[in-house]
């Protein structure tokens, strides 16, 4: 049967309009951030010189490193444990299947999300003012930071539990606490523990950079060596830190997989009791070590006044700063931050393409090829964006352009990994079909691979944009341009109304972008 009306090609205006908008954004961002190709080329010799001065690293510097390194670990242990103490109860309060009363669960979720929008460096800078420079500020910053992450993770896994046991407990007539103890906790305990370990891993990474804004730990030492132009020492700090971070992450990941997937065969009750006791003992030992090691003094007698002044300022934001005719106002700085993240995003989305195809196992014959690609990506991933920002600030000078480069390069590691996975997960059938048709490598790529992976690539790029925006606010605090720069000035100058309005600006922008990006991502996949 033939249809009477011949099918017509659907119009592609939507596609063209989208591409045009994206291009306009790109040009606008490049203008805003002064990021041009000649500028980049001018910076290359500087980057090369900086890197040359980093090598060979000053290995002997280790003697001075281990103490602040220990402090870094202690801060994250203490911070994560205290954070967890608050995070789990809040997660239970926020979970709609546990807390049936909305006037409890809605505020709980609000607190949770609010804590999560504020980046770690910002917490550190705030607490450095309130309680003075040093590890106390760092620990407090990590308490809030880990609280934000952990409560969210725990909340999500709590909402996903099997309702069966809950109904059973209700039927038995248990009161609320017993209901949680016997219906909820047994189900979530392993996940909660796995999340705790994961949060600890993240907190160590955070902990090692907090010193850059005066909150103790290895970051402080890093800042000092950089200020003294001892790049060889800075390099050894970075290397040692990365080694410690990677060792801890590897061990922790092992435990996490064990917790989530279980070991080989069921563990005997005696064994699992032994593990529990061992785990508690180790945790307690670490806690004692942290409490004894950290000099948690530094609480200045004026801290309460500071806090009061801060809150007063935060609740009376400086609305006049939103728009100033002469420039350098909130809106323009936010726009700059958006531009930095957008450009960084585009840079990484393009740079990571060859890496992704290199690392994808189904794009090369030998595992050796894809394995080396994966290794290269994970190396890029391990170097924190803050460190990259410092390198680029030295190279192209402080400002938004350094931020773009740092974000761009750092995201290559993450995005490249996600892209490689998308390629590995695609249907190989069309590739086979195109081979049979007589297509060469490039044609196979264009007709069988690209059309399949494009939606995933777009979705991951959008997701990365959400993360980049958060990082961009943070990078400004160490001099990489955008809203972070006036923010750190306002914090150091204790002009709290200004801090208040900037925070509002950040929270609104981040939430807005999250919402838009989330909606778009749902449409794409």
């Amino acid at each position: 049967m033939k249809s009477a009306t011949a099918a017509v090609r659907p119009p592609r205006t939507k596609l063209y309009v989208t591409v045009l908008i994206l291009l306009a954004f790109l040009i606008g961002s490049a203008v805003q951030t002064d990021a041009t190709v000649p500028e980049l080329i001018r910076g290359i010799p500087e980057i090369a010189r900086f890197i040359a001065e980093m090598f060979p690293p000053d290995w002997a510097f280790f003697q001075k490193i281990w103490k602040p390194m220990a402090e870094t670990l202690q801060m994250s242990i203490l911070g994560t444990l205290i954070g967890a103490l608050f995070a789990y109860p809040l997660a239970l309060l926020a979970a709609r299947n546990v807390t049936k009363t909305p006037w409890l669960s809605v505020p709980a979720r609000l607190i949770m999300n609010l804590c999560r929008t504020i980046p770690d460096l910002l917490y550190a800078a705030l607490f450095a003012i309130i309680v003075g420079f040093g590890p106390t500020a760092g620990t407090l910053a990590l308490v809030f930071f880990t609280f934000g992450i952990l409560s969210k993770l725990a909340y999500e896994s709590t909402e996903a539990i099997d309702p069966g046991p809950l109904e059973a407990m209700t039927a038995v007539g248990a009161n609320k606490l017993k209901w949680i103890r016997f219906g909820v906790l047994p189900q979530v305990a392993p996940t909660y523990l796995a999340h705790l370990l994961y949060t600890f891993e993240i907190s160590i990474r955070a902990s090692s950079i907090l010193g850059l804004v005066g909150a103790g730990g290895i970051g402080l030492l890093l800042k000092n060596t950089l200020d003294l132009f001892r790049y060889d020492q800075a390099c050894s700090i970075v290397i040692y830190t990365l080694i410690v971070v990677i060792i801890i992450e590897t061990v922790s990941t092992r435990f996490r997989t064990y917790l989530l997937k279980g070991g080989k065969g069921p563990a005997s009750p005696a064994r699992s009791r032994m593990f529990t006791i061992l785990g508690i003992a180790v945790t307690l030992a670490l806690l004692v070590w942290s409490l004894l090691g950290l000099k948690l003094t530094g609480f200045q007698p004026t801290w309460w006044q500071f806090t009061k002044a801060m809150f007063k300022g935060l609740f009376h934001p400086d609305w006049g700063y939103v728009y100033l005719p002469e420039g350098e106002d909130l809106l323009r700085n936010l726009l700059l931050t958006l531009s930095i993240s957008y450009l960084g995003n585009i840079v990484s989305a393009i740079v990571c393409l060859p890496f992704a195809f290199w690392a994808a196992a189904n794009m090369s014959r030998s595992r050796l090829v894809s394995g080396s690609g994966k290794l290269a990506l994970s190396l890029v991933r391990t170097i924190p964006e803050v460190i990259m920002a410092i390198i680029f600030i030295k190279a192209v000078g402080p400002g938004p352009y350094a931020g773009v480069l740092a974000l761009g390069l750092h995201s290559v590691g993450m995005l490249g990994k996600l892209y490689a996975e998308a390629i590995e997960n695609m249907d190989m059938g069309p590739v086979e079909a195109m081979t049979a048709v007589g297509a060469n490598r490039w044609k196979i790529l264009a007709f069988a691979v690209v059309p399949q992976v494009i939606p995933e690539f777009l979705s991951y790029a959008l997701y990365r944009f959400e993360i980049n925006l958060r990082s961009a606010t943070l990078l400004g605090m160490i001099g990489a341009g955008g809203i972070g720069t006036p923010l750190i000035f306002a914090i150091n100058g204790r002009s709290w109304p200004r801090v208040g309005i900037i925070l509002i600006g950040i929270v609104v922008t981040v939430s807005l972008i999250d919402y838009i990006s989330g909606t778009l991502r749902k449409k794409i996949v």
Partner: protein
Amino acid sequence: MIQFQNVSKVYPNGTIGLKNINLTIKPGEFVVIVGLSGAGKSTLLRSINRLHEITDGHILIDGKSITAAKGKELLRMRRDIGMIFQSFNLVKRSSVLRNVLSGRVGYHSTLRMLLGMFPQHDVDLALKALERVNIREKAFSRADELSGGQQQRVSIARALAQEAKIILADEPVASLDPLTTRQVMDDLKRINQELGITTIVNLHFIDLAREYATRIIGLRAGELVYDGPVAEATDEVFGQIYGRAIKQDELLGGAGH
């Protein structure tokens, strides 16, 4: 004309895929290959366009060895051989037309294809191919909006747009229901008769093989155990190919009749 000369294939793990096959398939034939699962039907078919490499012997296409062909020459030879897969192997997110046009990539430069610029002649050709399999009106739909049978017809159209002289079909109807099975087989048969395209099909169902083939080839453990016209392929012959009596599930049944 396709010639197999002492063709053998041993997989890297030692499994024997094909054992000393000698065959000649003449232009315009409709050949159906039958055999138990694992007999080597797919291996035979895929060695013709070298999706699988053989380990011994030669395969000649119109007198030219595809086994010895390298680089561009191999691509050029593949251009003349269309292939149809059990799982269709279409890009599901792309439009039907684009999937059909992808059969034309062998005719144009890499740069031109990276830009996706097909000449109008190709588009006309693709639309005509779709018309031949009765789904012209679906040209601008996304491939995954089509039913299984329609998707398989798109992949037939792809082979047509390719202007292939040979069509290889590896169990083209294995994932279709009996009714669409016949539509797809009818399409293949019609194309074979109207355009004279040499067609080689792997089939599981004995009654389908009998109905559509002009010639039947039987494989067993990589060896050629039967090669002859349909008329001579009696139940006993099939019993020999299969090494046992024919089972009911090897018949499609009378659906569509």
